[in-house]
């Protein structure tokens, strides 16, 4: 099934939700999903026979300065097709529903997004920092993140030898 068919299928299913199909001039095209509808859409594309996206390739996000774009890359091992979904989250503690119960791999990846970008995944079983220590302040992948001069009394910068 090609991209167009997938999108029309999803769009007809979720006619009421505001789905926005973006055809990028270069790179991957993606479907922007409002965060309320995300769980339903994901559930649908995972369980529908024709789509059957059983594999979550990547769950990541980036800081687009006005909001954070959480991006989901899906792949289907049975049909060998893919889909990119996007959810726009509010910067600083914006909430996005979790899909941990649908995809086991989402657990760690959501924790990573929370850790580095501060997106809260609602009803995630264990939304704790994963890569950074628990007492770390801030979310370093945000564009306006400022590194603190000291971490637990240790200087974070070192004088250059040059």
């Amino acid at each position, binding site marked *: 099934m090609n991209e167009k068919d997938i999108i029309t299928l999803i769009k007809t299913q979720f006619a009421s939700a505001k789905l926005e199909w973006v055809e*990028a*001039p*270069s*790179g*991957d095209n*993606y479907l922007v999903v409002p965060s309320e509808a995300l769980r339903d859409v994901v559930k649908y594309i995972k369980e529908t026979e024709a789509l059957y996206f*059983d*594999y*979550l*390739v*990547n769950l*990541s*996000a*980036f*800081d*687009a300065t006005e909001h954070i774009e959480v*991006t989901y*890359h899906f792949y289907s*091992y049975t049909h*060998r097709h893919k889909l*990119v979904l996007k959810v726009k989250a509010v910067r600083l503690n914006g909430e996005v529903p979790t899909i941990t119960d649908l*995809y*086991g*791999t989402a*657990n*760690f*990846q959501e924790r*990573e997004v929370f850790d*580095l970008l501060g997106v809260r995944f609602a009803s995630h079983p264990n939304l704790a*920092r*994963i*890569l*950074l*220590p628990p007492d770390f302040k801030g979310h*370093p*992948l945000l564009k306006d993140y400022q590194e603190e001069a000291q971490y637990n009394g240790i200087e974070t910068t070192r004088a250059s030898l040059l």
Partner: protein
Amino acid sequence: MTESNQPEKVFKTEEMVLNMGPQHPSTHGVLRFELTTDGEVMTKAVPDIGYLHRGIEKLAETVGYVGFMPYTDRIDYVSAMTANQGYAMAVEKLAGIEVTRRAELLRCTASELNRISSHLVGVGSFGLDMGASTPFVHALRERETINDLLESLCGARLTYNYVRIGGVSHDLPTGFIDKAMVFLNHFEPIVGELNRLLSDNKIFIERLANIGVISKEDAINYGLVGPNLRGSGVKFDVRRDEPYSVYPELDFNIPVGLGKAGTLGDCFDRYYVRVEEMRESAKIVRQCLLKLKDLPEGDIMGKVPRKIKPPKGEVLVKVESSRGEMAYWIVSDGSDNPLRLHCRTGSFTSMGIIEKLSRGMMIADLVALIGSFDIVAPEVDR
């Protein structure tokens, strides 16, 4: 006899919380597990990662597209060549850069040689986890020759930084093809010997059979990739199913787990897929070398703009690294530096399933499980 009237004393035991790592010998780097054990049997093992988090993704936002290439070596230092290649492919796709055929063949040769060396480390250190120290040294001995070959190709033994955006940094040195052929001829019987020494060993099989069984569905759901996925019987390989580079022209098999020792998807299957893959990679290298021999001298770099500035957009490129599918997700805003670069690695996703599998395992089995995933700690944390 007053005591007999009293209720029988219940012998109370407590669960013990054990801290495994970060400096434990069999955690393959700096990983930590919090084990809750009842004697030797675990009730839970919670991975605690991040000890090697170096913020490579943040660095990518400042060093630019060309400058990030050496950092990809450090994401997965055991298999740096494939990490290089994946990154280069992602930027090329985003910026629309063509790669010459000679460069593709060179990349393929180097990657597959690197895959052999990475699997040798994986297989050998897995043996070491199981207590067999000799196969480990034998594997490293073979890897040494590959290191020498790649050193003569690109000048470094571990952090190659060989692939460039649009091509590769060097053409073949003189005598490379012959030396590589000699190595391959020597290597193929060595795999047989490794099998006779380790894989066929009854103790080894007993340690791995029916341990850490991952079903097909679980493997896909938890996003296992590469040999770990194929160990569960899913016949999927990025090189075959989403072909890139010169792989469509090459003849190779995709080994999958067959449940040879016990159940499909147990530790032995994951291990054995790697052993088989070494043979397949040797086959691929042979074909690539023959193709390179026939190919006339040519450019190894495509047409690359002086300053790489991909247009606005984002791309996810998958590459079959030694630890499975490695996905680079690059978001560009049209400037010199990527807006966001994310690297989804095989080791990171396989950490997620450990907690689920660990229930009811013994401590020694957890060591087997971690080893069978062939986890490289810097790849987990990046």
